[in-house]
């Protein structure tokens, strides 16, 4: 029997995650592009790390950081009385961290594709850096930003390894579609697992199809 709760939770977690990922990805790409800080190459590698490390390793590291005995976990409990581990917030955190490199890389590539003369033109017309960013940089890199958002959403929707490490599998609370598939298969409930597989496949296919369609239309318009 298919429960809709994992589907709703997966969409909720992915939606909240992409909000964080959008701001973190755009901010990081902008800072990396416009400043020449020491250790830039090391930072760049660090930002890409979640893409290449196994998700379970990311989950383990997050557990060490935000777990009850972890440095961030202790601070959150002490000052805000918040516990992240085994909550939906943990699922959002896992989704944000694993999908961050996709948003960062897409944004970075989009920013690099912009003709810098256009930004200089805006500066000489009296625009502040903030105005240049919102009226020239962002609109011109919009297709790349949307790609990053969509890929991040799809990645978070399919997140398993890091999520199970820090959010666990609590049906009705932290069980997302991938977790529901795994545990249904483990219980030999292949019909339920198969239904979830179809649902997540349809959702992700629709998202990627929609993105490609939008991009195609956009390119034709340009």
């Amino acid at each position, binding site marked *: 029997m298919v429960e809709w709760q994992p589907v709703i939770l997966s969409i909720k977690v992915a939606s909240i995650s992409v909000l964080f990922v959008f701001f973190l990805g755009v901010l990081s790409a902008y800072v990396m592009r416009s400043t020449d800080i020491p250790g830039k190459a090391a930072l760049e590698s660090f930002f890409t790390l979640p893409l290449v490390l196994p998700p379970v390793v990311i989950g383990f590291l997050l557990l060490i950081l935000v777990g009850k005995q972890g440095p961030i976990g202790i601070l959150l409990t002490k000052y805000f009385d918040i516990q992240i581990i085994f909550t939906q917030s943990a699922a959002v955190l896992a989704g944000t961290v694993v999908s961050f490199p996709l948003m960062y890389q897409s944004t970075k590539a989009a920013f690099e594709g912009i*003709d810098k*003369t*256009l930004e*200089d*033109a*805006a*500066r*000489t*017309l*009296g*625009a*502040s850096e903030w105005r240049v960013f919102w*009226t*020239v940089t962002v*609109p*011109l890199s919009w297709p790349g930003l949307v790609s990053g958002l969509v890929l991040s959403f799809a990645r978070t929707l399919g997140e398993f390894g890091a999520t199970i490490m820090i959010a666990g599998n609590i049906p009705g609370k932290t069980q997302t579609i991938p977790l529901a598939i795994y545990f249904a298969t483990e219980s030999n409930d292949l019909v339920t697992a198969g239904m979830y597989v179809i649902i997540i496949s349809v959702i992700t296919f629709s998202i990627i199809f929609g993105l490609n369609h939008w991009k195609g239309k956009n390119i034709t318009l*340009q």
Partner: protein
Amino acid sequence: MLTVDIKKKLSDFTLHISFTAPNKTIVLFGPSGCGKTTILRCIAGLLKPDEGSIVSNDTTFYSSTKAIHLPPKKRNVSYMFQDFALFPHMNVKHNIWYGVKTPSQEANELYEKLITLLKIEHLPHRSISQLSGGEKQRVAMARALMAEPQILLLDEPLSALDAQSRYELQDELKKLQEIWNIPFVLVTHSPEEAQALGSEVIFLHQGQQVSEPPPSWNMNGNGKTTRSSFQYFY
């Protein structure tokens, strides 16, 4: 009045230029790679010179001794880029209005005046991709002047145009300079353009000002360089 006296080390040579631009068109003339565009970028604030000063009327844009380097937005210097740098995601009207800080009746009047002078009244709602080279040049000019600059910098403003548009726009540039009465600093590697537009021509060779044309340059009876003298640069 603009006074420039700067040095900047470039990869192949050190750029050193010193000139005063009254409210006329000053042409910086020289071959590609001699540092012309670098000078414009330094005046606009997009590049920082290594030493010297740039002063416009009473405002110091840059001074190495006083450690002043105003950002571009505080200089009130408009820059017309070689490829016009019009914003492709905005229509003509939005491009022209980009540099206006607060819309006002005066700004509206200036806008109407500019689009009439530049003969682009029919273009406001067109997208940039629908414009010809000459139209782009006119829109870029309108956008630059709409910001009410103290100085206008023009980087090879006519190089992307066909011969017919070039002749037309040369006259318009002269007319606009007379009306606005601010320093126009124009960069070109075309002898025809330099002669046609410049009230004063500054010759540049590998970042250095060449004040006395070498003997190999031919001079006409008025002491002015003739077209063949510009062959020096090629």
